């Protein structure tokens, strides 16, 4: 039975937090301070109770997942609990830590935390634009605690009062006599007794005192990548490793009815053929990848069942109609007002899309007698760990996870990794096995951004304002396919949480209703950068333009006219006004061009974009995109701008080119010849990003800017041609 606990007072909270720090001094005189992030509040308390009962002593506390080590030679290592996939997170976290540690960020060596250094594979996750915002305070607290410990110890060693010691640039000075100073390393080297965590919470620096946060510090991971020394998942190598390849079904959901090795076992280089009908698994281990893949062709496989669905059927299923779906927002009385005044309606469709990260899915596993080692490029290992535990049954083997550098991910490497395949093959052959997918496997046998269909109806009153808005969205699953919720509960909830991203109109509309209709497709769908934000914003913000046109009002002014009188509304107005100014909205573009505007938000981050387009040889050309963002406090503006620009380019690729279609139960496009991505020449040479900083804390940056681009371009095309395109990709 769970009882509801009273909220913790600040003192209680700190006590608990204090209990959750771990210090190690070690024989080498290393000071290590760690903090916790993401661990259930109840867990340390439980550990506490076990320790008090005398059942065990120490060692039972979960290792902290934020972790600093300081050595007498003044070298300092930060073990980062987040995975690097190109977003520069290790650099941003180093900057945040350096701020409170009072060291130059360059003094911090950043290493990826793994199972031996505070990495808990059951909880660690990188995604949803959460890393910086979630870690901002826990990381600073851990760093400031370490700084305080050093400062207090320096006071003792220098025989001055604690208040007299100033920590700055990796040294502690006596305020009155600056010649009295010790480097952090010297303090650690001279420490004679056990370190103690201070009894009071450290003071965190005020924003105006920041010197590291807000700096365009260079990325810590790039030099190794430039020299070919960085190790991504696909690059993982250990002695005696072998290569695996896995057979794929011809239709989604097909099961392996019969399978035998056939001539595959006799192919050159083949070490073992692994077949498990119950798991629908047939794979080959060989001495090279090429030989493993070639041998697959010689397996005798009989696939059964699965879906035979085609594109038309899918689009019919994914159709928003009046009256279907779960009402998830309701304001005023939409039914009573929707058929009044000037009425506008539109239906918008977005297709299946691939993540197309350029490093295909892969993993290496080494199953040994007492442990299983996994090298995986991953956004979340918890699903892998569960799967591995299920696969090895009751056998108690330690699972060690090495999270690898990722060559992009965009939501794909958060679930269904190749780790289980590598484990199965390594378990059979008794050696480390690397499974690297081909591009065809990666596009056809992963999961997709689900197709969506949105039906919108609006009514305008005589003053040109929106009186009512009725929105029905149909979408395949996004989060329901990756989070372990039983199907009956999903049906009870009735809508997928992932659809919520970018779903609600931010404007002041008196009568507003949103329905979401969950479509369970036999085609695998899941998380894609920003979840629902890209499809939802395309529909909502295209329709906003349609209503502006009906109201005979400039589309940007029409949006400003509907800014709500709230704090969020004030922030919305700021980004809209900023993008209006910086896109030269009031000045007509050169002849043959037109501009379109769109807005979206994700969490507390707000993004407005203006796209400037022309038509050349019946193709849409985007010349310039202006982006205004309020992402709160920005830790590294240069990296954050890259996230925004990259989001625009990826979103533009979906806007202009990308569409997967299904035929006979399988995605038809298998590689980039049939599924081209945006190229350099198709990329607008000008993508200008401006951050409107607000508040003292950061919001998310990895996804929000992908939201508006589809509608911004569609609206610009309408302004140029008076032709409204309501399906993605945009076709003239």
């Amino acid at each position, binding site marked *: 039975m769970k009882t509801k606990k009273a909220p913790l007072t600040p003192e209680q909270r700190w006590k608990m937090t204090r209990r959750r720090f771990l210090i190690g001094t070690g024989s080498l005189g290393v000071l290590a301070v760690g903090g916790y992030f993401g661990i259930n509040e109840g867990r340390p308390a439980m550990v506490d109770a076990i320790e008090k009962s005398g059942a065990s002593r120490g060692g039972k506390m979960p290792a902290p997942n934020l972790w600093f080590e300081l050595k007498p030679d003044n070298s300092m290592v930060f073990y980062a609990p987040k995975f690097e*996939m*190109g*977003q*520069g997170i290790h650099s941003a976290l180093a900057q945040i830590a350096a701020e409170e540690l009072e060291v130059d960020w360059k003094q911090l060596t950043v290493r990826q935390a793994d199972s031996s250094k505070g990495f808990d594979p059951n909880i660690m996750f990188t995604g949803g634009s959460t890393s910086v915002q979630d870690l901002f305070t826990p990381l600073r607290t851990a760093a400031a605690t370490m700084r305080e410990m050093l400062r207090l110890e320096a006071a003792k060693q220098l025989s001055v009062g604690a208040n007299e010691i100033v920590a700055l640039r990796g040294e502690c000075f006596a305020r009155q006599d600056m010649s009295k100073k010790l480097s952090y390393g010297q303090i650690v080297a001279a420490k004679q007794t056990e370190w103690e965590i201070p009894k009071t919470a450290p003071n965190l620096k005020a924003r105006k005192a920041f010197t590291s946060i807000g700096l365009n510090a*260079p*990325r810590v*991971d*790039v*030099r190794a*990548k*430039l*020299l*070919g*020394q*960085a*190790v*991504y998942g*696909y*690059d993982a*190598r250990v002695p005696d490793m072998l*290569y695996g390849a896995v057979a794929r079904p011809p239709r989604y959901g097909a099961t392996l009815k019969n399978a035998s090795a056939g001539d595959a076992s006799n192919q*050159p*280089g083949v070490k073992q053929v692994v077949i498990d009908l119950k798991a629908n698994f047939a794979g080959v281990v060989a001495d*090279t*990848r*090429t030989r493993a893949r070639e041998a697959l062709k010689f397996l005798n496989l009989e696939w059964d069942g699965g879906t035979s669905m085609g594109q038309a059927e899918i689009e019919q299923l994914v159709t928003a109609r009046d009256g279907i779906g779960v009402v998830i927002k309701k304001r005023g009385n939409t039914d009573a007002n929707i058929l009044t005044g000037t009425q506008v309606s539109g239906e918008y469709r977005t297709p299946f899309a691939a993540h*197309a*990260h*350029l*490093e*295909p899915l892969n993993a290496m596993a080494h199953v040994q007698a007492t442990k299983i080692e996994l090298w995986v490029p991953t956004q979340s290992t918890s699903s892998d760990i569960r799967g591995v535990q299920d696969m090895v049954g009751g056998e108690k083997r330690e699972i060690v996870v090495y999270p690898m550098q*990722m*060559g*992009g991910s*965009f939501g794909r490497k958060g679930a269904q990794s190749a780790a289980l395949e590598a484990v199965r093959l390594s378990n059979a052959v008794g050696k480390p096995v690397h499974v*690297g997918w*081909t*591009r*065809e496997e990666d596009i056809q046998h992963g999961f997709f951004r689900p197709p969506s269909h949105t039906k919108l109806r609006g009514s305008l009153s005589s003053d040109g304002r929106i009186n009512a808005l009725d929105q029905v969205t149909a979408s395949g699953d996004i989060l329901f396919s990756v989070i372990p919720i039983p199907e009956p509960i999903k049906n009870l909830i009735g809508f997928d949480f992932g659809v919520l991203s970018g779903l609600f109109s931010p404007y002041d509309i008196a009568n507003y209703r949103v329905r979401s209709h969950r479509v369970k497709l036999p085609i695998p769908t899941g998380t894609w950068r920003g979840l629902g934000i890209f499809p939802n914003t395309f529909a909502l913000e295209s329709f906003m333009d349609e209503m502006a046109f009906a109201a005979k009002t400039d589309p940007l002014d029409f949006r400003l006219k509907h800014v709500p009188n709230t704090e969020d509304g004030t922030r919305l107005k700021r980004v809209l006004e900023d993008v209006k100014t910086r896109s030269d909205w009031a000045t007509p573009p050169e002849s043959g061009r037109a501009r379109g505007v769109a807005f979206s938000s994700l969490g507390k981050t707000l993004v407005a974009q203006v796209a400037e387009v022309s038509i050349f040889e019946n193709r849409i050309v985007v010349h310039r995109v202006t982006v205004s963002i309020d992402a709160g406090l920005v830790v590294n503006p240069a990296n954050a701008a*890259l*996230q925004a*620009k*990259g*989001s*625009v*380019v*990826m979103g533009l690729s979906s806007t202009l080119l990308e569409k997967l279609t299904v035929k006979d139960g399988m995605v038809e496009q298998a*590689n*980039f*010849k049939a599924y*081209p*991505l*945006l*190229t*350099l*020449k198709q*990329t607008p*040479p000008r*993508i200008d990003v401006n951050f409107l900083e607000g508040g003292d804390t950061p919001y998310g940056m990895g996804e929000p800017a992908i939201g508006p681009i589809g509608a911004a371009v569609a609206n610009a095309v309408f302004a140029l041609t008076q032709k409204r395109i309501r399906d993605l990709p945009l076709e003239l």
Partner: protein
Amino acid sequence: MLKLEINQRSWDVPDFQADEMLVWVLRDTLGLTGTRFGCGVGVCGSCNVLINGVPTRSCQTPTADAVGKKIITLEGLAKGTGENIKLHPVQAAFLENPLQCCWCMSGHIMNAVALLEQNPNPNAPQIDSAMNENYCRCGGYNTIRKNVTRAAEIAGGRS
């Protein structure tokens, strides 16, 4: 044994790999993982290496075809080792303005190195033409445009 000349060094490759695509021999057999695999059909360009100075898709090149030719990979661009390593001007430009995940970076760098060998001061349309054939899913195309110009400056001794 097949003899390959990679980064001015001789490497042995078992004869049975003569028909395997060069990208896998470089990465898996020889451990030169700076060359990336992306699509296997010659579209994305992540696997570009220089063969006799020409940017070439190593996923479309049977290993036997590379015998007797000079192969340069990402690992062979910088001069010196350890503390004294000197980056190639194109690498130096990409260090100043990095791409994001950088999986595709090696392929772009190979294109840029070849372009600057032929044309030390390319203009914007020349850069666009030379660099257009490779994908960057993180969307760093404008960084790539800028870095080619910057690399030309660095190579020309302009800071």
